[in-house]
């Protein structure tokens, strides 16, 4: 295997695959966002986008093997796309259609694809963490070398569920990697306003110390750095070495979610809270300049892994793919009303 980037196990095809997945996630999220303007009323409730976190998502998921599993939060669109879930089924779910990934029952916050190891999401902050930890317990006693990835935000680390879970995982040496996507914000609260470590100028990864497990901080805008850290943690977990907390520093490029309003008021995506609440336009602009998608493209083009023409072709293909997802979502049928009472019990 040619190792062009000093990251073990990543050949050219894999690197191009990684960038392709980042572009697909970005294009998907762009189309979700545009739907609010182009097709008002089609997306209901609350939608949270992964733009800005593409490198972190792809770098993390690239470490997995078939049979591994993951759980995430409501900010869940990126993961299934990378795992190979159909964007048509995902968009149809977000549009509330019967052909949606979850039949229109769950919507944007609950995109789940169990067939690909994606066991579910929680819309309640922090509450997916113990569930992922339980999946890791199952993996441990099944003894097939499976690992679980558990994704959550900076805000979630202030829940008891986070600390309770990390303690047990460390105590029992469970095969789990906790990927803390630190995007600096919990809605309109900045991390140093609500996190004692951040307020003290320390990385959030120090929380691992209280639970006697390794904690590392990584540049979540660099898929190779994420791959390296999460990969090392996954390997350790697979070998029975127990859990790791990986703090992946990302910057979400959209607002926390679309506007919140009762029916009748059209929903839209406001600007990022850095601008609307804090007037920190420069902070946001700097994040835009560091956008991980063009950043990784530039790296791959510079080291000639990828030609500009090929990069353009990949982008174009992702656009077409997501355009088709939008069309599929718009054209597919709504569920039958009476199906609402179908899956209440197993």
């Amino acid at each position, binding site marked *: 295997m040619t190792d062009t980037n000093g990251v073990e196990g990543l050949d050219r095809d894999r690197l191009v695959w990684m960038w392709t997945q980042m572009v697909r996630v970005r294009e998907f999220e762009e189309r979700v966002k545009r739907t609010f303007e182009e097709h008002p009323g089609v997306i209901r409730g*609350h939608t949270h986008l992964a733009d800005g976190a593409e490198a972190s998502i792809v770098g993390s998921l690239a470490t997995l093997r078939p049979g591994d599993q993951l759980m995430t939060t409501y900010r869940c669109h990126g993961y299934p796309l990378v795992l190979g879930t159909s964007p048509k089924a995902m968009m149809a779910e977000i549009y*509330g259609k019967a052909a949606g990934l979850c039949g*229109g029952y769950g919507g944007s916050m*609950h995109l789940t694809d169990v067939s690909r190891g994606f066991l579910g999401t929680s819309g*309640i902050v922090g509450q997916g963490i113990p569930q992922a930890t339980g999946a890791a317990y199952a993996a441990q006693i099944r003894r097939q070398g499976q690992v679980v990835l558990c994704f959550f935000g900076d805000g*979630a680390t202030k829940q008891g569920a986070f600390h309770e879970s990390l303690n047990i995982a460390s105590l029992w040496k469970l095969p789990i990697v906790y990927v803390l996507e630190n995007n600096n914000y919990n809605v309109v609260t900045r991390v140093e306003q609500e*996190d004692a470590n951040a307020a003290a100028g320390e990385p959030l990864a120090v929380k691992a110390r209280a639970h006697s497990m390794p904690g590392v901080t990584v540049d979540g805008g660099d898929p190779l750095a994420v791959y390296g850290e999460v990969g090392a943690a996954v390997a350790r977990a697979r070998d029975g070495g127990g859990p790791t907390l990986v703090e992946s520093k990302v910057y979400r490029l959209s607002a926390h979610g679309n506007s919140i309003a*009762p029916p009748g008021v059209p929903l839209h995506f406001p600007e990022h809270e850095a601008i609307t609440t804090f007037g920190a336009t420069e902070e946001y602009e700097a994040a835009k300049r560091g956008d991980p998608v063009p950043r990784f493209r530039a790296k791959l083009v510079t080291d000639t892994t990828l030609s500009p023409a090929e990069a353009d072709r990949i982008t174009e293909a992702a656009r077409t793919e997501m355009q088709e997802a939008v069309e599929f979502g718009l054209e597919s049928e709504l569920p039958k009303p009476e199906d609402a009472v179908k899956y209440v019990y197993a």
Partner: protein
Amino acid sequence: MARELPYIAAINEAIRLEMQRDESVLYFGQNIATTKNDPFLQEFGSDRVRVTPISETAEIGMGIGAALAGYRPVVELYMAEFMLVGMDQVVNEAPRFRYMTGGQVRVPLVMKAGYGFTAGWAGQHTGSIYGMFMGVPGLKVALPATPADAKGLMATAIRDDNPVCYFQHYLLLLDHGEVPEGEYLVPFGQAAVRRAGTDVTIVGTGWTVGRALAAAERLAGEGVSAEVIDPRTLEPLDTATILESVAKTGHLVLVDQATLHASASAVIAAEVADAGFSYLKAPIRQVTALDATIPYSRPMEEYVLPNEDKIVAAVHQVLGSAPVAAT
């Protein structure tokens, strides 16, 4: 003097007035007061107004502790479901203290949260879960349905010496209505008769009050006179006003956004069956949400919820009548 205000502004006005009136009132919770421009922070300062991390157990528990220590906290919890991660504090701590200490302490705490956001928020953010907080001795539950009540019930909640769950309805946040200026208190345990009638009593809470009123309007067109009652608080519950109405109409339809067994409706039905059976000329009908988690997709969401048609049909049923032609 009254003027038009949206429901949400009426709530904020009550908190502000109570904070001006009583220095022991605190206001804290997530995603409030994160900049110097926040009006509460500007007026009352960071001793009394604080943003908290996403830590409901600590937020509610600290509310209890500060209350025990002499303050009157209002904890902003955004959604009733978020209280569930701190449920011990809500039902098994706050309401027990006074009793278990033989009356030594009081816990004047307001837990403020929205509910019922059935607008595509799917399974975990749409619940009408007030039923979980009923029947807990020591805990009060207020469910304002109008902007005026939103103000008056909040002011009363803050002055109450007990823990109060104040549940504002998400679908009503931007509803406008007359709201009295200045000090305005709505007493707990006093139902409001929203529309007087003689043929049937319809009881609704929160958002279903509006649905019941719309149904009553339609029924009026058929010559049916419906009385619509809004209990306004579930603990304490004004059973007397409901019984008085049923004594007059002989017919009762209960409307509730919760599922039947978790509804206020089921409790009211039991109370009326207990104390007002002889008034009833027909069985009670309950129009509640169907037994399902709230689905995301609109047609399924609409299917499980109570609506005008279902209320009108229930009234026809209790009256044993097909609609009569309007006169």
